[in-house]
């Protein structure tokens, strides 16, 4: 009985042994350093720069100012941001609508076939996205392959304007991002317990009802991930707008790019980047609050 009257040992006794902690630390070190040096530090610097002043010929003067942010309030830039969001929104919507049935198909077939399909999906991008994108110019222009075929078939008299408009942008964007969007949707469809579909049918729901009430809600993590994976790069990917869109309207990606090249106005470019980052963070924040998991983004 004497023993049990002894005070319990201090609570601070480690849960893990020292060696285990050492091993963990060693494993963590590279990524920690990497994240600190090449992610956190650059973003801090970016934020810092956004408060500096542009000097002559594109140099930077280290006098703090809020002018860069005031400049962003100019309705011109609000328009640019809005325009970018609209294009990204369209692309994302269509990508999801087109990608979901494909993801469903890949999930349905045998695992061998599905990995083959995934590879085939990624393969064109493997080559060089830009070269393949350029092929769209050949395909879509007024005397391009599609118009020629349609006119030869007498389906058209006048060539259709397929290139240098939002249609072409969206087609190009879908081409670039659909493969990435399909992957997370595919994996969430695959994870879906087929028993649930059967349960729903068993309870009297037809295929459409089952899809709306069970399949879709349960695969929504994959859909959300696909949305993020399409929407975000869309905003910054200025090559497609340049190449296929005719560049008649400025996108935020181009705008930022211009600040660092043609305009040589880094602080303003930094401020734009910060604003863009904040907008995206808000979206991602909402995504995680809705129960999204950033891990789904890796597919």
């Amino acid at each position, binding site marked *: 009985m004497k023993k049990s009257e002894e005070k319990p040992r201090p609570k601070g006794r480690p849960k893990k042994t020292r060696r285990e902690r050492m091993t963990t630390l060693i494993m963590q070190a590279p990524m920690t350093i990497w994240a600190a040096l090449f992610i956190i530090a650059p973003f801090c610097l970016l934020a810092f720069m956004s408060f500096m002043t542009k000097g*002559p*010929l*594109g*140099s930077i003067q280290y006098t703090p100012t809020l002018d860069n942010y005031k400049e962003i309030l100019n309705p*011109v*830039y609000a*328009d*640019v941001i809005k*325009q970018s969001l609209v294009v990204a929104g369209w692309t994302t919507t269509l990508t999801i609508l087109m990608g979901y049935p494909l993801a469903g198909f890949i999930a349905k077939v045998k695992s061998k076939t599905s990995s083959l399909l995934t590879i085939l999906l990624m393969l064109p991008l493997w080559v060089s996205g830009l070269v393949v994108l350029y092929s769209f*110019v050949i395909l879509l*222009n*007024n*005397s*391009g392959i599609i118009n020629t075929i349609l006119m030869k078939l007498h389906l058209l008299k006048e*060539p259709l*304007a397929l*290139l*240098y408009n939002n249609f072409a942008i969206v087609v190009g964007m879908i081409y670039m991002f659909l493969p990435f969007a399909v992957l997370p949707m595919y994996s969430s469809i695959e994870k879906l317990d087929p028993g649930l579909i059967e349960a729903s049918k068993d309870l009297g729901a037809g295929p459409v009802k089952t899809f709306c009430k069970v399949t879709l809600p349960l695969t929504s993590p994959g859909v959300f991930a696909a949305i993020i994976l399409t929407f975000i790069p869309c905003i910054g990917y200025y090559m497609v707008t*340049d*190449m296929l*869109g*005719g*560049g*008649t*309207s*400025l996108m935020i990606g181009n*705008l930022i790019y*211009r600040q*660092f*090249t*043609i*305009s*040589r*106005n*880094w602080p303003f470019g930094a401020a734009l980047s910060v604003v863009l980052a904040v907008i995206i963070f808000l979206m991602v924040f909402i995504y995680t609050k809705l129960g999204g998991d950033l891990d789904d983004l890796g597919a």
Partner: protein
Amino acid sequence: GNDGSSPEEGGSASKGGTLNVLTWEGDVSDETVADFEEEYGVDVNITYVEDTNTILAKMLQGNSEYDVIDIESAYMKSFVDAELLAPLDYDKITNYENIDPVYVEKGAMGDEKLTYSLPITGPLYTGVVINKETCPIEIDSFEDLADPALEGQVWSTNATISLYAGALKALGYSPNSQDEKELNEAQALLQKIKPNIKAFGASSISSLETGECSVAYTYDYNILMFDDKANWDKFEIVPETTLGYCQYWTVAASSENQKLANEFINYTYSAESAIKLLNEWGGVPALKRELIEEGVAKDYFENPMLQEFADMWPDHEELSVSDEQTAIMDTLYNELMSGE
């Protein structure tokens, strides 16, 4: 060959090493580079420019290892003012004599005495080009591009300077004007034209060829002119709308290989190099015609444009942009491009 300096005597000192050359596609032929590497026993790294501003920005940050830089005249002043360039070593550039005096006499805007720069080829022009077969109206000025009949038929360059300079010139101002009022007028003109514009971009040839557009305000039509004989009759420039400029070789002040850099520049002025360039890319030669006539296709000089381009050059005010102008134009440009 007919190059003045023999590689043996000039190159002995600079055997080995690397030369970083920043240039535009079409300003030096691949073969020439290979020949130079072989003759001088050096490595030449060719990097292609996307935008001169980017280079300027990088160099201003002190973050560049370029030796030879291919600059367009518009930025010459900025480079010179920022002391980014080293004076050329004319002792090394013995092929200087091969250059057509027309191009040397005028000098470059911001470096009129050609202390730092030498024109690479003959002049380039930005201007309105018409596809005679498809263009619905007569065009003889920049303002005509705003004609409603041209809706969705105009291709335009996306280079800010060319846009505003073209508009300024059309309004009767200096294309290099820094006057805010004048620039605002130019903006108003551009805004009128914009609804007609199908696409802004770099490469316009294809869209004129494919019938995507019937008119282009562009800087690369010269290539199209010389590329294919069939195009000579099909396309036409509107002389009133042209802006002229040149590309210049310069040597970076920070270069540790200045001697080799000058030797490289010199090498490109050999008749052999010039012929290779013309055969590969076409364009207006900077060298005296008699030195190269034999090396190129029989009909090369039959192109009527060739003479016209050369003749036009002395009357043109070369483009040159200042920092202030860039800033103003940039805001205007963003405004122009943001609306639907």
